[in-house]
């Protein structure tokens, strides 16, 4: 049978189970789009910027665990994907990015809209391909999806010259393919499992640090079993939030730069750390040289290169988190750590991290807490990057698996809205809330049109402080309150939304908050709320500049006069 390169590509996507793609048209991908009507199984979501397409593909992938697919034309289309690809790389998100390329004879001649996108994305993809030989297309598509979703997931880019899309050649679908040099380890080495069990059994003051790896491998039950069996408090990373229900008795919040005080103290004081699917990122460890030097550390990760990269560990186990925890749970003994756990409870009581003070103005913490109450914790929360991201992570209560979608490793402003679009497309039944900052929102604000065109019932809450707030907080605390280039005069977001056919409202006073949220929820379609929050509110707790996990600013309000909502 004969097929064009474009048909082979789309046939491959269908065979990989792709139902939706995100992206933008352009010269070199016209043949691909032109072929799409022959493959009605695939729905294409037209975004308004390729960065939006990449983040939407990420949001889709993060919400569903499936591979997110984005498409862009050569040159500027391809370079616009770069931020989203980098974001997916740092947070291990399975993604296949498809880019058009100039025709084969023109490659290397600086032809119109030519960029070396495989070169540009070399350090931010798990792997990438330039398809020079049309019959290799089916194999490359298979390999790309396999690489994106297996092992430590990540983005894979396929760059396709326009004439390859158009060329018709003999089609052979590869039943098998061979990647001899790529064989991720799934099972933990038995000797290492036994060593780890011994360390865990001997522990007196253990903590589990759970990262996104738990969510990626779907090891919720196994994590809970380990924690309950050995009575070990579970602390997550930012990206590990919802790996264990936050209302679980052994859940002790998340650690790091803006983590809970008791979580940081426990991590600092533990005699044993079981790090699961996390990579000791500097936002989680704070000053890395001061990170608990006396604990024995067990580190479980599917990526051997993460072991010993930032922190020296005592017992490394390379493998898939779910498989390894299943092995480990068989050999770990039941135990109790009553004194240790009551110590954590004591820290949590004496260092309340999440209280909300009484105020007439709209406090962001209060807004997030009210969204939690109104959605009964059932929503999927997607955030931008900044203070609002931290408040969203702190004040919503995550009891459902994989219910927070946020840009951790790259910290990409503008992630929120398009990622929420992707999440809503992937979870059509879910209540998806995009909690965004006024700065972040304006970076990808044009995707409001995508929401409208796709009729997505997304709820958008802008925590509008009129500042690039997180940077302003640093200026306030560490740069003599000199607010250089951080005040933002935003547009009227409600009017902007209306212009896109999306209803909205503004909440200026505390008493506006609940009615606005209720209005959003009663609306069947999308809705936007512009929360005019206290402009100079800070995020606490906060690790001091260059400080260790326990060198914290707890904030005056946190220390005194605290009122719980």
């Amino acid at each position, binding site marked *: 049978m004969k097929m064009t390169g474009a048909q082979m590509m789309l046939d491959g996507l269908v065979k990989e189970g792709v139902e939706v793609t995100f992206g933008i048209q352009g010269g070199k991908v016209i043949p691909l789009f032109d072929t799409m009507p022959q493959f009605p199984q695939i729905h294409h979501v037209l975004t308004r910027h390729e960065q939006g397409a990449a983040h939407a593909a990420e949001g889709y992938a993060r919400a569903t665990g499936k591979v997110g697919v984005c498409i862009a034309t050569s040159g500027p289309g391809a370079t616009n994907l770069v931020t989203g690809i980098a974001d997916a790389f740092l947070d291990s998100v399975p993604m296949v990015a498809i880019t058009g390329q100039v025709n084969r004879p023109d490659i290397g001649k600086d032809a119109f809209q030519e960029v070396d996108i*495989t070169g540009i994305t070399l*350090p931010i993809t798990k792997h990438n391909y330039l398809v020079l030989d049309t019959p290799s297309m089916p194999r490359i598509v298979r390999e790309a999806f396999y690489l994106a979703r297996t092992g430590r997931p990540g983005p894979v880019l396929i760059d396709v010259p326009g004439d390859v899309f158009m060329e018709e050649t003999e089609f052979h679908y590869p039943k098998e393919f061979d*990647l001899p040099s790529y064989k991720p380890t*799934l099972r933990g080495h038995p000797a290492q499992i036994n060593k780890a069990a011994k360390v865990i059994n001997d522990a007196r003051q253990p903590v589990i640090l759970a990262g996104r790896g738990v969510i990626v491998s779907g090891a919720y039950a196994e994590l809970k079993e380990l924690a309950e069996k050995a009575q070990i408090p579970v602390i997550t990373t930012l990206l590990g939030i919802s790996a264990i229900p936050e209302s679980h008795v052994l859940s002790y919040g998340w650690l790091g730069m803006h983590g809970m005080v008791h979580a940081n103290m426990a991590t600092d004081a533990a005699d044993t750390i079981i790090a699961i699917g996390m990579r000791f990122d500097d936002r989680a460890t704070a000053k890395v040289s001061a990170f608990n030097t006396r604990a024995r550390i067990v580190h479980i990760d599917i990526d051997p290169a993460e072991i010993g*990269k930032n922190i020296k560990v005592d017992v490394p186990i390379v493998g898939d988190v779910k498989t390894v925890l299943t092995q480990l749970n068989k050999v770990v003994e039941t135990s109790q750590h009553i004194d240790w756990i009551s110590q954590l409870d004591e820290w949590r009581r004496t260092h309340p991290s999440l209280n909300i003070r009484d105020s007439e103005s709209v406090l962001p913490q209060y807004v997030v807490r009210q969204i939690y109450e109104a959605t009964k914790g059932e929503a999927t929360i997607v955030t931008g990057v900044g203070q609002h991201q931290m408040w969203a992570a702190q004040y919503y209560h995550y009891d459902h698996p994989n219910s927070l979608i946020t840009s951790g490793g790259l910290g990409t402003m503008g992630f929120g809205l398009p990622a929420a679009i992707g999440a809503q497309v992937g979870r059509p039944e879910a209540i998806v809330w995009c909690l965004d900052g006024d700065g972040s929102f304006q970076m990808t604000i044009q995707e409001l049109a995508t929401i409208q065109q796709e009729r997505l019932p997304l709820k958008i809450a802008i925590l509008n402080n009129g500042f690039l707030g997180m940077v302003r907080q640093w200026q306030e605390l560490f740069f003599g309150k000199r607010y250089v280039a951080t005040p933002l005069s935003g547009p009227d977001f409600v009017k902007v939304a209306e212009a896109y056919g999306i209803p909205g409202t503004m909440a200026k006073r505390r008493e506006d908050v609940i009615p606005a949220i209720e209005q959003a929820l009663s609306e069947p379609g999308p809705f936007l709320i512009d929360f005019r929050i206290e402009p100079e509110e800070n995020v606490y707790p906060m690790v001091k500049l260059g400080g260790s996990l326990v060198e914290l600013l707890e904030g005056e309000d946190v220390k005194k006069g605290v009122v719980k909502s």
Partner: protein
Amino acid sequence: MTGNKHTLVALVEDRPGVLNRMASLCRRRGFNIESIAVGHSETPRLSRMTIVVDGTNAMIEQLRKQLDKLVVTMKVSDITSDNIVVRELALIKVKANSETRSEIIQIVDIFRADIVDVAEESVTVEVTGDEDKIDSLLSLLRGFGIKELSRTGRIAMTRGGTSLLGEDKDKTGGRRQKKAAS
């Protein structure tokens, strides 16, 4: 950078862009490549690279794992502390005239090097050996004036009957299993 010179050998897929992937990764992770030599290996479609880099054991182990993680690498091994044969080849074009030529030839003989080209005002010497040997020869020839120098960089192989793909010395189980079917 503190640490020692390490010799890494890698078996990689013989495809365009592979050298770039390896070199780019070293650069990105802040390693300075002292030399890199690439050529065919005993297995069709696999090239063998010898990379010489500076760093502490922990840094090099991290680099090794990162290189090993690339989809195009079959195996990367740090053979620095193994019993290895190390060779490099150099071509040295030395200024020579009728007075100095015989002296140069004597030195070349002592080093069991070869004269591969002779011109009116120069001779070209080919020498094989470890870096020390080449360095010593160079320092002796420098006095005559060196017009051109080309060194291949190190290639290396462990002594004894083992081969890179057969060898296994990973203690955590990570690498052994990475390359096993799963």
